[in-house]
């Protein structure tokens, strides 16, 4: 079916819009409803979070003490590679698409996503992609073991199963691109009258920018892995030095995708935190326009810093200087964001429900990750930091207490709106405190390990690294186990909680989603809402 017919078929005026939803499996297979698809994405990403997490547990268990106790080095490499691929493409990215599906239409006053059938398709590709990716672990040649960066020539040493990895990455890419087209089409076309661009909630803004990043870089990744595929199976020499190819070229192409990818995972987090802090500070977001421009600048800069991942590869002095300066510049818009969050809290009237706790922890711990990122930008010192646990600590700080904490903050924040019930605040807080403390026990000592000289991606290490690896592993086991509390809180909230949520849910919450009843009805905003300046957050953001 062509895109035009899909569009006209699902315009709000169309009268078969109100079919009863089918029951059972069929409902989920055929659904074109943004809320159903949002739920599918979120449940899928939670499942992947636990699969990727169990791999992390294997890694931390092997690294608990020096010597090999549990797994062979080859399997260890498969675990680090798969852990990253699954967490990046299976857990964090689909989780953000899930939030986009649930929240974007409700935040801009749209009846659904602009392209509902494509929406269904972009979700249902994912289970097949990840089944394919995970199935490589059971093949003779094993799963991918060259790191999630898939650097050749090492990645080309993988066996036949490598083709499955490449096609799985292709499918994830197609899914992401379709998801982004949908986000852009929805935000640009389906905003309710009066919801001008500079009145949109920050979460909508950050997702709009993220979607453009995705559309620009996913095809680049697809091209890179396709060249790996033909090098491996069809005798081409794109990256094979012996055949006139260039292994370093792959790294340039990969990181041209890879660096924006990092921001794809963090920009929506900025958005969620910018929704939550004003709500619980009962005070409007400070510097709304600056936040929008800062997000756009970060997105732009993300395209011109890729080679800071490659300082050790050997590049001309001028090249290294350019990438160092450009990378340092990212600190400026990122700093603006952090200062604005703190200013939003300043002189507010704060309460500390679970979403706010996660949001505050996000600001603190993401800032720590950002500051270590600034250290890594210094090219000459990066020749010491690079490929050590210092880097591992850095990116886990921005991804786990960064992106993942923002996801949890968002889940607690909107769960009452989704389910119509309040979650258990006590258990939410327990989940928060156990996670927030253990995540630091897990990742903070890794800074020390890296500085002391421990390379990343090694299954065994010399005895001088023993103490902090053991501490890190203990933190890892606690952090892993504490995520079961999260599942418990969600299951309780969905099926058992008796405490009904009001439409408003949070005293200080502003925005169109809070004008809807809780749970939000299956179809919302069939007719565009009339925007009341007092119910939206950014009505008077600029005078």
């Amino acid at each position: 079916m062509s895109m035009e017919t899909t569009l006209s078929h699902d315009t709000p005026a169309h009268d078969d819009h109100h079919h009863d939803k089918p029951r059972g499996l069929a409902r989920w297979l055929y659904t074109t409803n943004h809320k159903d698809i949002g739920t599918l994405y979120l449940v899928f990403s939670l499942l992947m979070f636990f699969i990727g997490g169990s791999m992390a547990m294997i890694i931390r268990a092997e690294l608990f003490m020096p010597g090999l106790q549990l797994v062979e080095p080859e399997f260890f490499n498969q675990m680090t590679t798969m852990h990253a691929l699954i967490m990046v493409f299976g857990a964090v990215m689909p989780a953000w698409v899930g939030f986009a599906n649930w929240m974007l239409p409700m935040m801009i006053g749209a009846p659904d996503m602009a392209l509902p059938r494509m929406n269904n398709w972009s979700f249902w590709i994912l289970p097949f992609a990840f089944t394919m990716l995970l199935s490589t672990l059971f093949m003779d040649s094993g799963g991918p073991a060259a790191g999630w960066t898939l650097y050749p020539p090492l990645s080309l040493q993988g066996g036949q199963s490598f083709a499955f990895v490449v096609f799985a990455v292709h499918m994830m890419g197609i899914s992401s691109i379709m998801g982004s087209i949908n986000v852009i089409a929805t935000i640009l076309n389906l905003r309710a009258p009066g919801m001008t661009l500079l009145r949109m909630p920050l979460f909508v803004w950050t997702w709009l920018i993220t979607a453009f990043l995705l559309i620009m870089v996913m095809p680049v990744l697809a091209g890179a892995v396709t060249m790996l595929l033909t090098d491996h199976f069809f005798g081409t020499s794109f990256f094979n030095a012996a055949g006139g190819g260039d292994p370093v070229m792959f790294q340039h192409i990969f990181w041209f995708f890879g660096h924006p990818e990092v921001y794809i995972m963090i920009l929506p987090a900025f958005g969620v935190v910018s929704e939550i802090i004003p709500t619980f500070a009962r005070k409007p977001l400070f510097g709304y326009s600056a936040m929008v421009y800062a997000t756009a600048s970060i997105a732009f800069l993300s395209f011109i810093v890729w080679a800071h991942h490659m300082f050790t590869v050997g590049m001309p002095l001028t090249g290294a200087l350019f990438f160092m300066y450009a990378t340092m510049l990212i600190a400026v818009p990122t700093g603006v964001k952090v200062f604005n969050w703190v200013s939003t809290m300043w002189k507010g009237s704060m309460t500390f429900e679970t979403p706010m706790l996660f949001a505050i922890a996000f600001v603190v711990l993401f800032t720590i990750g950002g500051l270590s990122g600034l250290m890594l930008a210094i090219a000459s010192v990066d020749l010491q930091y690079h490929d050590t646990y210092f880097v591992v600590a850095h990116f886990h700080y921005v991804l786990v207490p960064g992106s993942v904490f923002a996801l949890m903050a968002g889940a607690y924040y909107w769960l009452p709106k989704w389910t119509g019930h309040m979650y258990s605040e006590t258990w939410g807080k327990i989940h928060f405190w156990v996670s927030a403390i253990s995540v630091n026990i897990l990742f903070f000592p890794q800074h020390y390990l890296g500085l002391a000289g421990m390379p990343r991606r090694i299954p065994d290490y010399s005895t001088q690294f023993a103490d902090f690896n053991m501490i890190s592993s203990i933190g890892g086991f606690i952090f892993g186990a504490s995520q079961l509390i999260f599942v418990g809180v969600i299951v309780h909230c969905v099926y058992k909680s008796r405490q009904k949520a009001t439409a408003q849910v949070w005293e200080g919450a502003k925005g169109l989603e809070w004008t809807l009843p809780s749970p939000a009805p299956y179809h919302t905003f069939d007719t565009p809402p009339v925007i009341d300046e007092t119910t939206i957050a950014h009505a008077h953001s600029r005078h």
Partner: protein
Amino acid sequence: MKKPNTFIVVAAVAAAVIAATWLLLAAPGYTGNEINMTRGVTSQSTINYSLHMTVLWICIVIGIIVFSAMFVSIVLHRKSRGYNPAQFTHSTKAEIIWTVIPVLILVVMAVPATRALVNMEVAPETEMTVKITGFQWRWKYEYVEDGISFISSLDPESNAARRLASGTPPEEVDNYLLEVDKPLVLPANTKIKFLITADDVIHSWWVPALGWKRDAVPGYINEAWTEIMEPGIYRGQCAELCGRDHGFMPIVLHVLPRAEYDAWVLEQQNPESVSRLAASPARPSATAYENE
């Protein structure tokens, strides 16, 4: 009033535990695992160490300022204290200040960072050249002028102990995983050029005491240079994932005073003359050759 108090108590306890751990680890008396970057034994490593410390302290100060403002706000501006929310939404003055000041801080950081990079990358006139080739999973060293060449791989004792369920605890092996059968012998206080390449996949040659690592890429010859100020034994590892035994291809440098190094070169070139050299005072000292 009960809930906010619990929050403050938990937050304060967590902060105190973290601060205490840091202080403990930073204390001069602490004799456990190393937690900071080495100062190393080259001009590059010392420059990198002080640059690292400068940037680290700038980051710590920024962190303290931001987090204190946040913590003060968390303590004072809470609903349970009956605090009424202000409604300001922006302040052009504040926003300009916190855009300009970070830019200035970055400029201050960029100056020494640029100088360090230039020193790192622009090699001086060197006196000798060693070609390093990475293989899965060992290193080959070629002394270009002296015609010496050998392969250096993981020490057999470590290699046996590192097998899954080997029965040998790592603590019982000297320099577990950081010992090789044949170390790279280099002269101290000599400007040395390295030509670094690989034969199969990408590796990365890294000895932290030298202050840098450089990727060994098939099809490329990367250049690096060093001048080691103190004789001694320095250890490192391959730093770029290179397959199954990536964790098991260490690098060991034996850095000798110039005269002892020259004697070692002669010995390598004329193995039959060993007995003659043994009597001469140029014989490498026993301390530098603990594994011979």
